[in-house]
């Protein structure tokens, strides 16, 4: 038995309370069991079958799907693409997000308006974001190519999404635009709690602006940055909407990440079992980050 009821005279009340606690959590447990735990186990089970999606007829194939997957170039290729995308967009998000948070923490005019505007890309639907960027990237009348040509940076309209490495760079850039506000929100909240005295002491010790940043700000931000990097790594790794809608994995699978391949296998090629195997393999690839995050997030707050 674990520590439900401590051996005190009030034990009966404690037990009754425990029963009420279980009652209150019951709907949550039932729902999560039905829509997450069962489907998750079912997905693992499905990955051992060869299933044709339209008829849902399946044959037991054991670990054959996994053997195919490990031997296939498309899995390793997609894993590589996923890593390039994640590392690329995450780096830009963190660097730009921290810089923007530092600026927005300064005493600038109309500060709350500026903060509001900066956060907006994060809350707008990915569908909307993709529509806007596709319009901005339009090859004939897109404003971006026009601005770059008139500034003399390029002489021809740029093919933003149709060829490599442009497509990956564009993807990383749009991803950074969409998701960096998350970094700003988290870092800004933390910046506001750094005691003023630390900066005063550093200034008295003769530290300049850079000195204060590296000796005071950065160490204070370490914990929140760890959390933010872990969360964003997990979220960027599993990002589907933005990539699917912006490039669809192209040109020629060059931006096809693991989530896209799962979708393609299940609903494009109609191979449910194989898709499940891809999904499980993708989860295994993410598991390390998820466990580290769980460990970090469940430590008592610093």
């Amino acid at each position, binding site marked *: 038995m674990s520590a439900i009821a401590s051996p005190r005279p009030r034990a009966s009340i404690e037990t009754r309370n425990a029963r009420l*606690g*279980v009652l*209150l*959590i019951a*709907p*949550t447990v039932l729902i*999560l069991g039905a*829509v*997450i735990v069962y*489907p998750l186990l*079912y*997905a693992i089970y*499905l990955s051992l079958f060869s299933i044709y999606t339209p008829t*849902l007829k399946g044959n037991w194939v054991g670990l054959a799907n996994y053997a195919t997957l490990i031997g296939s170039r498309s899995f390793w290729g997609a894993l590589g693409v996923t890593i390039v995308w994640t590392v690329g967009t995450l780096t830009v998000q963190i660097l730009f997000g921290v810089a*923007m948070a530092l*600026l927005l923490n300064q005493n*600038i005019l109309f500060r709350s308006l500026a*903060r*509001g*505007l900066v*956060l*907006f890309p994060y*809350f*707008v*639907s990915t*569908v*909307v974001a993709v*529509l*806007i960027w596709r*319009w*901005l990237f339009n090859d*004939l009348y897109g404003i971006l190519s*026009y601005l770059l040509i008139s500034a003399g940076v390029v002489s021809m309209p740029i093919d933003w999404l149709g060829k490599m490495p442009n497509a990956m760079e564009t993807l990383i850039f749009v991803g950074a*635009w969409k998701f960096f506000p998350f970094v700003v*929100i988290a*870092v800004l*909240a*933390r910046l506001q709690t750094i005691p003023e005295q630390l900066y005063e002491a550093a200034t008295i010790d003769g530290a300049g602006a850079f000195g204060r940043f590296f000796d005071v700000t950065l160490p204070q931000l370490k914990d*929140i940055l760890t*959390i*933010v990097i872990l969360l964003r790594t*997990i979220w960027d*790794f*599993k990002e*589907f909407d933005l990539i699917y*809608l912006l490039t669809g994995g192209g040109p020629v699978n060059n931006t096809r990440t693991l989530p896209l391949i*799962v*979708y393609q296998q*299940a609903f494009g090629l109609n191979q*449910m079992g194989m*898709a*499940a195997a891809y*999904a*499980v393999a*993708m*989860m295994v690839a993410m598991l390390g980050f998820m466990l580290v*995050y*769980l460990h970090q*997030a469940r430590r008592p*707050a610093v």
Partner: protein
Amino acid sequence: MIAAGRPTFVLLNVVTWALVFAISFPLIWMVVTSIRPEADLFTIPPSLIPRHVTFEYYAKLLWETPFPSYFLNSIILATSTTALVVVVGTLGAYSLVRFSYPGRETLAGLVLFTYLLPSVVLIIPLYLMMVRIGLANTLSSLVIAYTTFALPYALWLLRSFMAGIPEDLEAAALIDGASRIGAFVDVVVPQALPGIISTALFTFILAWNEYLYALVLVNSERSRPLTTGVMNMLITSFNIEWSLLMAASVMMSLPLVVIFGFLQSYLTRGFGAGGVKG
């Protein structure tokens, strides 16, 4: 704040506002495009301020496209998901914070774990389940599917809000003879209300913006929500009418602007404590 000289102050403002403008430019361009006649769209050089303002694309959107139906579906979908998740999540979070029973900590860990799960892993079994129980192509199937990410998210947020409520008030109510449930309704819920409202608004945004489940589970015009519906307008059109699509984007973002107005002060103050770190 270290007192800065006047030139530094000016430079800081110019740099910050230039960046803010660059970040919001796509959103400004969306609005400008939506109110510009098609003929003005393709002028060289493009201008930021439209010469003629027209609302014809909004009218067209409302009267000649299935957009209103998508919009209504999204409202029903996001509201139902939010209501379900907030009620279940409030009870669950209260239980996780105030009661002790075996498995509580494991459960809290599991909730956090499910919050990180990729949708593409769950979409395959959920699709099969929906087909089997005959819910495919309905809004209900999406409400069920959306709880997979919305419930863990709401639980985790609500848990941190509830943990911040002092236990003394509840204890006082209990001593005054209130039942546990009575204390919950009269003391805890009012105290947690700002947290519950914020959670509801965040959940609404998540459900409003969701794309993948809607893409896989609903394939009928009747139950399509905005995300897949508007994307369909792009895919099925013969020649892309950018003004129309931008008008759709603006309309689709309006509820977010309203919610954002409510949330902004909260976001720039305490989100770090509540939403990021559990």
